[in-house]
């Protein structure tokens, strides 16, 4: 009798402890977008956060932690408490930055295995755009001219070793050309630079440049995907043009710091699956013309690894940016 009394007390105590542990989520979640407002990461993070907010019935805020092609925001999340309240909406650059740190021989800002991948949200091939008043009508003309004048054709990027930089470097390598790189602090300024004609080219996600292509300010030459971009059916891929190594996607995926408890991760995976099927979210992604590509768990892990391998190779090929 007494024993059972003790038992029930113990059970009571255990219940009390469990209920003292807050159910997840019980306070606002921060989704870190490591790029400035108006860039691709930001434009994806905001609807994702909004849809998650609906599913979880809990505020999800987007925080733009910007700097050095996203390293600041990613490091911030990598070192955050793994409690599911700090998430990262990362672009492909998440696997570039540790590689670049290795290249400089400095302690890495973070490593890829500091993150637990949750789900892939979207994957969009970059496309090559040039100001409409530049002479090149096709990608072939562009590559040919770049071969004739090595290092003379310039392009803007969202930052050194950033996604937009890597896309161009993969192309340069695949086509055996040399271009001149002018880094900017984010995708917005990089777009402004190509619109103003201060650089000759930009690799960019289709969504951001589409209105400018439609308005006749920019011309799309080719895409980095294995298929053509739906919104631009007349623009070929580099694969079709005979540069199979020029394959690059700006993908957006959600990560948590490594060590986040599995139940929380599972809850987040479910929330994200529900979020990408949310009609508002679909509408939002349609509005920014970004195709939803949802992968989670092992599937996302495989995709992530393949992509990281390609990019690590790319970084090593670029090498260290030295000022001679």
């Amino acid at each position, binding site marked *: 009798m007494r024993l059972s009394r003790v038992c029930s007390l113990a059970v009571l105590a255990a219940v009390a402890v469990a209920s003292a542990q807050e159910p997840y989520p019980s306070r606002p979640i921060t989704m870190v977008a490591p790029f400035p407002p108006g860039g691709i990461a930001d434009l994806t993070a905001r609807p994702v956060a909004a849809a998650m907010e609906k599913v979880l019935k809990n505020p999800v805020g987007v925080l733009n932690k910007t700097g050095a092609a996203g390293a600041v925001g990613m490091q911030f999340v990598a070192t955050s408490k793994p409690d599911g309240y700090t998430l990262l909406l990362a672009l492909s650059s998440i696997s570039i930055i540790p590689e670049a740190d290795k290249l400089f021989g400095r302690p890495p800002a973070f490593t890829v295995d500091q993150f637990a991948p949750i789900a892939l949200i979207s994957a969009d091939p970059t496309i090559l755009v040039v100001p409409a008043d530049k002479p090149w009508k096709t990608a072939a003309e562009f590559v040919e001219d770049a071969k004739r004048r090595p290092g003379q054709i310039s392009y803007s990027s969202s930052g050194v070793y950033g996604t937009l930089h890597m896309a161009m470097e993969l192309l340069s390598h695949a086509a055996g050309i040399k271009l001149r790189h002018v880094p900017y602090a984010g995708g917005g300024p990089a777009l402004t630079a190509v619109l103003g004609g201060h650089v000759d080219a930009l690799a960019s996600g289709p969504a951001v440049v589409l209105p400018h292509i439609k308005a006749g300010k920019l011309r799309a030459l080719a895409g980095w995907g294995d298929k053509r971009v739906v919104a631009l059916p007349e623009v070929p891929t580099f694969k079709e043009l005979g540069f199979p190594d020029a394959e690059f996607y700006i993908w957006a995926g959600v990560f948590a710091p490594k060590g986040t408890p599995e139940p929380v991760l599972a809850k987040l995976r479910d929330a994200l699956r529900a979020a990408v099927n949310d009609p508002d979210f679909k509408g939002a992604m349609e509005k920014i013309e970004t195709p939803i590509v949802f992968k989670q768990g092992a599937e996302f892990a495989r995709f992530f690894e393949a992509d990281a391998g390609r990019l690590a190779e790319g970084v090593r090929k670029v090498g260290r940016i030295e*000022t001679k």
Partner: protein
Amino acid sequence: MPRDLVSGLFWLAVAIFAAVQGLSLKLGNLNRPGAGFFPFWGGVVLGLLSIVLVVSSRGRDAAGGSRARSESSKPLVVVGALLGYLLLLETLGFVAVTFLFLLLLFRLERLTWAFSVVSAGVGALASYVLFQLWLKTQLPPGPFGF
């Protein structure tokens, strides 16, 4: 005390530090300035200016100390309170720390206990309403959930 001498020497140390750090980054050259270019030359400029400051301070030592100095130690206490605020902010939560901070300073200013407690409470509440309820910023919550 030749104040410009002391401050000049201090800036000189800062300048040397910056220039050395700049050198250890890549300087590059005038046509391709590297990561260390601006820090190095910024340090050099600050160094030169502080040398001028040190040299020119020698003639006016007398003028330096002429300022009246009726000082209390209050700024130190205030800085200490601010330090405490910062150190405790992420453990106690912002509402509690704001209350303690206000209470300490109000008492330092010799306001009555009753008045201090009430005012500090109002201040802490205002901070909660403004930053938490209204702006929904993510100030660190305390162990009590606020």
